[in-house]
């Protein structure tokens, strides 16, 4: 339990009368991929927004490496190592794929006072950007303007940008959404490859993918944790079968 790099306690978020996230305890460990399942409206994206700082919590706390980060701004959280991707592609459409990743990598070595230096020529940031593009399988598309990339490629770029910020914790909101079979398979490989030295939280609807990569699964329904355990435990859980997986399981 104490191995957790990121842990929440009683985390809640209220929207008016609706408890979108209600008393959630979740733990992420380095080297483990923790998947969150649940029907639409279960509070999965709200959970990611709470962890990344996009939304303030209504109650409960978030601890990262032992420190309370419940009130930190999203940019502070990113800088201390919590990176996130978005369900709805959130990139710089006017920039090339490379510049998208270069800017992301620049956030680690921002050098805002080096006003006389050419940002694009700075090797450490270039290399980090190139690595992220390679990892996401976009190396051949580096010079293409992001708005001209296919939907699947934009999803890959979305992930590449998070990787370029060298995070320790990755919060991935439906990275496979809208991807073709081949792209999805490549993304699953990528997830497997980065899991050993990252702590991952994966929100995903693709069941096959989730069961293929997850070390631990939490099932949410109506903002609450219904069940949490290993993939086998989740598969066997009567509550999960009844509430979520239905007859397919």
């Amino acid at each position, binding site marked *: 339990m104490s191995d957790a790099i990121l842990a929440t306690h009683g985390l809640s978020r209220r929207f008016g009368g609706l408890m979108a996230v209600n008393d959630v305890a979740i733990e992420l460990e380095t080297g483990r991929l923790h998947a969150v399942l649940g029907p639409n409206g279960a509070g999965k994206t709200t959970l990611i927004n709470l962890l990344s700082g996009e939304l303030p919590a209504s109650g409960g706390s978030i601890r990262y490496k032992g420190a309370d980060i419940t009130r930190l701004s999203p940019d502070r959280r990113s800088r201390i190592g919590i990176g996130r991707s978005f369900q709805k592609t959130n990139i*710089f459409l006017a920039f090339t794929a490379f510049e998208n990743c270069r800017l992301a990598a620049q956030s680690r070595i921002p050098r805002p006072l080096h006003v006389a230096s050419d940002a694009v020529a700075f090797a450490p940031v270039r290399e980090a950007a190139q690595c992220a593009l390679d990892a996401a399988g976009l190396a051949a598309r580096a010079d293409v303007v992001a708005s001209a990339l296919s939907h699947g490629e934009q999803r890959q770029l979305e992930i590449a*940008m998070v990787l370029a910020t060298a995070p320790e914790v990755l919060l991935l909101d439906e990275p496979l959404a809208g991807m073709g079979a081949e792209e999805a398979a490549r993304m699953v490989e990528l997830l497997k490859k980065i899991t050993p030295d990252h702590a991952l939280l994966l929100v995903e609807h693709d069941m096959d993918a989730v069961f293929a990569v997850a070390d631990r699964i939490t099932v949410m329904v109506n903002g609450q944790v219904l069940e949490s355990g290993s993939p086998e435990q989740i598969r066997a859980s009567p509550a999960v079968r009844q509430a979520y997986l239905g007859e397919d399981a």
Partner: protein
Amino acid sequence: MKTRIALVAALALLAMFPFAGATFYTELVTKMMILGIFALSLDLLVGYTGLVSFGHAAYYGIGAYALGLLAPKYEAANLWLTLPVAITAAGLAALAVGIFVVRVKGIYFIMVTLAFAQMFYFVFHDTKFGRGSDGISMNFKPVATIFGVTPFDLGNATHVYYFVFAAMVAVFLFLRMLLRSPFGRALQGIRSNEHRMRSLGFPVYRYKLASFGIAGALAGLAGYLSALQFGFVNPELLSWQQSGNVLLMLILGGQGSLFGAVVGAFAFVALEEIYSSVTTHWQLLLGATIIALVIFLPGGLASVAGRFKRTLVGGVDE
């Protein structure tokens, strides 16, 4: 490469212009270049940071008033003392306002920048400190004496022309350098997608504040030069019409292009000059021109070269 040639040609033309010998036009182009600096400063906000300020004249006016207020009654002010003070004062005023305004977005940003500019306007319009609606007339042009040497004469229209020309080129080069730096790249990221920039770990607020301060300082430089050229200042320099005019210059020339900002300022003054010689209702013609331009050339005048090339060669947008 082509743009570089065009730039060099434009620079050469400007450098030789005073040799044409017509003082009226030398002074007119001086005014254009001063407004070019003003438009460049606003372009940093509008075109590169995504902050549409409708109160940028405040900092222009503060730069101008710095000279008006610092100029002694019975002797000439010194350029090298008053100019840094003007730039600093405008920059600090922008930073102070920026602390409040860069937090808000979109239409609210437009409204609060306007509100702050109106506050400054009335400070100069309605207080003893600002000397009221008549403003301040300076009895002497500033001198450029430094260590006992006076390298140029600010009472001479041609010398003022070259001084302003040098200032405009310097501002242009400074902004071009800044926009290539990590800071400038981050600003352009903020313009493109502020939400993602924050999520990537950029302290967006501080970047926007710095941009607002720099833009204010450069506007202050332009205002100072205006006061230097005309020898008087009045509250109209800070008026919302002036803030609107500089926005129109960007729309005319094309925001998000340094070249466009300068072209817009030149075109604005030229149109004003031409139309006002034809009719007293010149604003009507100017307005119609701007509307036509927005409809038929949304990228502004600076986009003409690219469009022309595309029609000829059938190429695509880069």
